[in-house]
C-alpha cells in the first residue's frame, strides 16, 4: 500500500500549506477591515532615509554573490546525491564507502579549484 502511505504522510503537508495561505489571507483581510487607509504621495514613495530617492533600484548593478550562487548550485546537487548513499551506508559496507570517497574527493577537488580560481572571493 505504498501509494496510500505516501498519500497519508503528505496529506498534512498539503493541508497545512492550504491552512497557511488561508491564515495569511484571513489576517490580511481582517487587517483590511479595521485599518485606516490614508494614502499620500509622500507616504507611497520609496523609503530612502527621508530623502527623495535617487534613480531606480532596479538597475544593472554588481551582484557580487553571483559566483557564490553558481558554486552553490553545483554543490547542492552533489550533496543531494550523498543522501541516498548515507541512508544505505551501513548496508553497502566498506566498498560503498570507498566508492563514495572518490565522489567526495571530486567534490573536494572542485571546492579547491573554485577556491584557487577565487570564485569564492569577493568579486570586484
Amino acid at each position, binding site marked *: 500500500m505504498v501509494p496510500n502511505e505516501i498519500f497519508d504522510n503528505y496529506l498534512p503537508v498539503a493541508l497545512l500549506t492550504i491552512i497557511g495561505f488561508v491564515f495569511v489571507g484571513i489576517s490580511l483581510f481582517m487587517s483590511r477591515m479595521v485599518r485606516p487607509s490614508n494614502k499620500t504621495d509622500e507616504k507611497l514613495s520609496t523609503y*530612502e*532615509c*527621508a*530623502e527623495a*530617492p535617487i534613480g531606480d533600484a532596479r*538597475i544593472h*548593478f*554588481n*551582484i557580487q554573490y553571483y559566483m557564490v550562487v553558481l558554486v552553490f548550485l553545483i554543490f547542492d546537487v552533489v550533496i543531494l546525491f550523498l543522501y541516498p548513499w548515507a541512508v544505505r551506508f551501513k548496508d553497502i559496507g566498506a566498498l560503498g564507502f570507498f566508492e563514495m570517497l572518490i565522489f567526495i574527493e571530486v567534490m573536494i577537488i572542485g571546492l579547491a579549484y573554485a577556491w584557487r580560481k577565487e570564485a569564492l572571493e569577493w*568579486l570586484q
Partner: protein
Amino acid sequence: METDELLINMGPVHPSTHGVLRFKLRMDGEMITDCEIVMGYLHRGTEKLGEMKTYLQVLPYTDRLDYISAFPNNYAYVKAIEELAAIEVPLRAEYIRVLVMELNRIVNHLVSIGSLLMDIGAATMIMWGFREREKALHLFEMLCGARMTFNYIKPGGVREDLPEGFMPKLNEFLKEMEMRINDYEQLINSNEIFKMRMKGIGVITAKDAINHGLTGPALRGSGVNHDIRKLEPYSIYHDLDFKACSRPEGDSYARYMVRIDEMRESLHILRQVADTMPEATVVSSSKYGVAPMTGVPSTVSTYFPRIFTPPAGEVYSRIEAPKGELGFYIKSDGTTKPYRVKIRSPSFCNLTALSWMVKGLKIPDLIATFGTMDVVLGDVDR
C-alpha cells in the same frame, strides 16, 4: 561585466548616522566608490547667535553643541573669555572644572563605544554604557540640576560649589567604573567578531590623519600623540599625573582602544582630583568677579556680572574635549556682545576625513568607521 553604479542615500533618517547626517554613496555592488557627506540638517546658527547675545547669554548655546559632553564646551568658551579678559580663577573652581570635564569624558566615551557597538549589531554595550552614564548624570544633576545642558562653568569659576554628599557618591562611581571598564573589555575585546569587524578597517596613517586634520582619539588612534592637555596644559592639568593615550595602528580598533584607555586615564585623573581638591571659594576674586555677600555660604554665588565688557581684542583658545580639539575664537570690539564667535569643533574636522577613509570599503565598514570617529551632529552643524 559592465554594471551600473548604485546611488544610495544613507541618512538623514537612518539608524546609524547618529542624528541627521546624510551620506550620498556611490556604490559598485557593496563597495563604496564615492562617499559624499551632506551636513547641515542640524544647523542652528550658533556662531551667528553668538554675535547677537551678550557674553553670558552665549554660554547656554555651547551646551547644545556637543550635547553628549557639554561641560568641555562650556569650559572651552569660558576659557576663551577668561583669556580675553584675563580673569583669575580660584583653584577650587579649576579642580571642579577638571572633575566635571573628565567625568564628562567618560560619559562621552561610554556613549561613543556603546553606539559603535550598537551600529555593528551588538545592542548590549549601549545599555551597559547608559547604565553607568546614568550614574554620572545623577552626579551632574546634583551639581547643577541639569543632566545634559549644564550651563555650569562660568567665567571666573563655576556656578555653584559641590553640593553636600557629592564626593562620597563620586568615589562610589569611580570605584564602580573601574570594575565596569573591565566588564566592557571582557564583553567587547575578547570577541573575535568584533576584532574581525574593526581591525584593519578604516585605516588612516599618521601623516594622512594630520593632513586631514583629525583630532582627539581619532588622531591618537593613528599614533600621533597629540593631546592638548599635555601640549598646552590648561587649568590644572600640569599638576596632574596622566598620559595621553595613543595607538599606532590607525584602524578602527585602535580608535576604539584609545577611548577605553582614555576612560581609564580619566578615572586616574578623577581620583587625583578628588583626593587633592582644595577647600576654598569657587568664586573669582578678580575685578570682574563679584565677591559673595558676607555671611552667605560660598555655595550661593552670583559672582559674574550679567553685562560684561571685555577689552577689545581677539583670542583663540583650545582644549582637549572628549572628541578632540575644541577651539573657540572670540573677537571682542569692547562692547557687551562678541563681534565674532567661531567654533572649531572636533566632530566636524573628524567627519570631513571620513569620506576619504571609506573609499573601497563596504557599507558595514562605513558604519564601523563612522562609529569610531565619534561624531555628534550638534557639534558638526553648530
